[in-house]
């Protein structure tokens, strides 16, 4: 049952990734078409901070972080667990991936929060 739930979640987060990563690529690669600014400007420090100050951005980036990391790291766990591992090694893979995921998520979430609360001009 637990494995079924974990796998279902791997698939259920896909719509979130599809929408948010689609928008992310549109912004980073097609800014001139979708947002009317140059690619360079879209990636500029001030523009990024400006964007990052909206609550929607804060929530959506954290959602993309969680969904993308879960989907990708669960996929990696599956790949690693196909190797001929002993039960102890399989457990190590599970815990290793989980703690790595939590660490990277915490870093990303902190950076997003930092951007959200950045004071322009000091």
């Amino acid at each position: 049952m637990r494995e079924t739930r974990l796998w279902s979640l791997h698939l259920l987060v896909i719509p979130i990734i599809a929408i948010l990563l689609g928008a992310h690529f549109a912004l980073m690669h097609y800014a001139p078409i979708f947002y009317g600014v140059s690619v360079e400007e879209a990636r500029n420090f001030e523009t990024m901070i400006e964007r990052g100050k909206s609550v929607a951005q804060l929530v959506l980036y954290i959602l993309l972080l969680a969904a993308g990391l879960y989907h990708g790291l669960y996929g990696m766990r599956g790949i690693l667990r196909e190797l001929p591992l002993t039960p102890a090694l399989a457990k190590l893979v599970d815990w290793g991936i989980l703690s790595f995921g939590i660490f990277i998520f915490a870093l990303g979430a902190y950076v997003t929060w930092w951007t959200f609360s950045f004071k322009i001009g000091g």
Partner: protein
Amino acid sequence: MNSNKPTAYNNRLGLKGWVYAGRYTFERYLYLGHRLSGMGLIAYMVLHIIETANRMRGVEAWQGLMALFASWPFKIIEYLLFAAAVFHAMNGVRLLMTELGFFLGKPKEPVYPYSSSVMRHRPLTYIIMALAGLLIILGGSSLFFP
């Protein structure tokens, strides 16, 4: 989980078996591509989170990084990443449909000559891959944006 103990035949192919073990179908290569693109994407995502954390080091650090990404080698890497993401997403949609049982046809009695659900699904597979190819080609145009 399989334990892959060596047998008298020792038919474990290891990494080589990822690429070729005789008579692989089109779908088997899509599986390989899906796996490689998935691994590439998660590796990129982790590095990306670490790299974008550089904004906390201030304007100069960030602008230096963006100038580096504006160079040709990085533009090409970004395009390859985009292509991998499009392929993975489109093939992922195909996998979702297969796993949820769409477009596989009704189950039939196994009477010779057998019809397989993979073959019934194949026209759709070709359409999805053609669309992915088109998106990947169109996506290349972003290379020329300033």
